[in-house]
């Protein structure tokens, strides 16, 4: 394979059967989004959003992100010649901050205890005060689910003859909405299932209900199921992925596999479940849970 730009290598990720972790007589396939150029599914979203934005000279990108989207935007911005500033919660993992800086983005930290909501609010304030900034804002940008409708979902429908359930992590809702819509066209009975993080108390601490936010991209009614996954369950599944399948994946991927196994067990024999593993484990290498230790509850993992 020869490409003229790294941007041409975004998407078209492989599906691999989870032979050890699939329940008896069911097949779980994992879509390895960690194989995108910056190591996460957000490369798809970043490319689609920047191409759709048609920036003018002098305009700069600004985005609230706890990491992966920022890193992806930083790569796309670099290769397309734009400046990028990211607003990220101070408790995002250090690898993500380091990577963002290495890819050339400027970083503004928002209070960690306010989580993603706090980063969103701060970025909105900055953008409102300076019209040089263009906030692509993945939470309400239709190019986000569009990237998964035209990419992730299309690829799954192309590569498999049967899909009974799609499981993906719930962040912005982009993957679930976009890939879900495409898969419903190809497989009308498919269940679209969200794996949702159950945040630790320290992360939730200062959020008030008034800070509540449902991303406009996300239409909960399009989900067939929405299941909470604790940090401990996600960490255990991340270790199982590595130990039994050789897949080195991130925390949300663990949550997604945890849910995929539960969903597969509840479906009839012969069922096929696809789970989308959003990133590789590299950005979490400093985390303490790899050898079975408790996962830190004061970190915003995804």
């Amino acid at each position, binding site marked *: 394979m020869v490409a003229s730009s790294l941007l041409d290598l975004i998407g078209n990720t492989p599906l691999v059967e989870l032979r050890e972790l699939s329940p008896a007589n069911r097949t779980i396939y994992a879509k390895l989004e960690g194989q995108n150029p910056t190591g996460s599914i*957000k490369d798809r979203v970043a490319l689609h959003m920047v191409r759709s934005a048609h920036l003018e000279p002098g305009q700069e990108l600004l985005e609230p992100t706890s990491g992966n989207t920022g890193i992806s935007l930083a790569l796309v911005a670099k290769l397309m010649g734009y400046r990028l500033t990211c607003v990220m919660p101070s408790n995002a993992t250090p690898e993500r901050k380091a990577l963002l800086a290495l890819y050339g983005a400027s970083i503004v930290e928002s209070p960690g205890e306010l989580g993603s909501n706090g980063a969103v609010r701060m970025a909105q304030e900055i953008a409102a005060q300076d019209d040089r900034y263009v906030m692509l804002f993945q939470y309400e940008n239709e190019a986000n689910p569009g990237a998964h409708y035209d990419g992730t979902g299309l690829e799954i429908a192309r590569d498999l003859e049967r899909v009974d359930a799609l499981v993906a992590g719930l962040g912005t809702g982009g993957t679930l909405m976009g890939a879900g819509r495409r898969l419903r066209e190809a497989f009308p009975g498919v269940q679209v299932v969200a794996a949702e993080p159950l945040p630790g108390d320290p992360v939730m601490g200062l959020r008030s209900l008034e800070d509540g*936010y449902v991303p406009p991209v996300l239409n909960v009614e399009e989900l067939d199921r929405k299941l*909470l996954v604790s940090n401990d369950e996600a960490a255990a599944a991340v270790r199982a992925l590595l130990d039994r399948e050789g897949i080195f994946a991130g925390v949300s991927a663990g949550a997604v596999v945890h849910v995929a196994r539960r969903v597969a067990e509840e479906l009839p024999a012969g069922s096929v479940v696809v789970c989308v593993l959003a990133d590789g484990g590299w950005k979490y290498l400093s985390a303490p849970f790899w050898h079975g230790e408790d996962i830190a509850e004061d970190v915003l993992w*995804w």
Partner: protein
Amino acid sequence: MSVVRVPPVLRSEAGGAREVEASGSTVRELLEDLSSRLPALGSRVYGEGEIKSFVNVYVDGEDVRTRDGLDTPVGDSSTVILLPAMAGGC
């Protein structure tokens, strides 16, 4: 009786408790029972016959909005989790 887990932001309305108890065979009955036991907590999560828009209610880990909403059955041994709706990350 079901155990209802209360997020940090609502604990002051629950007298500081991380968990409270409420009874009901559906989410509606349970939230109405909760509202009569702890009106301050109940009014933050439930009112005018609906779950408040920035509150998510889970029965055994599953969001009731993708099940049968207020008609979702609650078992005696069910755990109910209340959470503020929030944007996920990345």
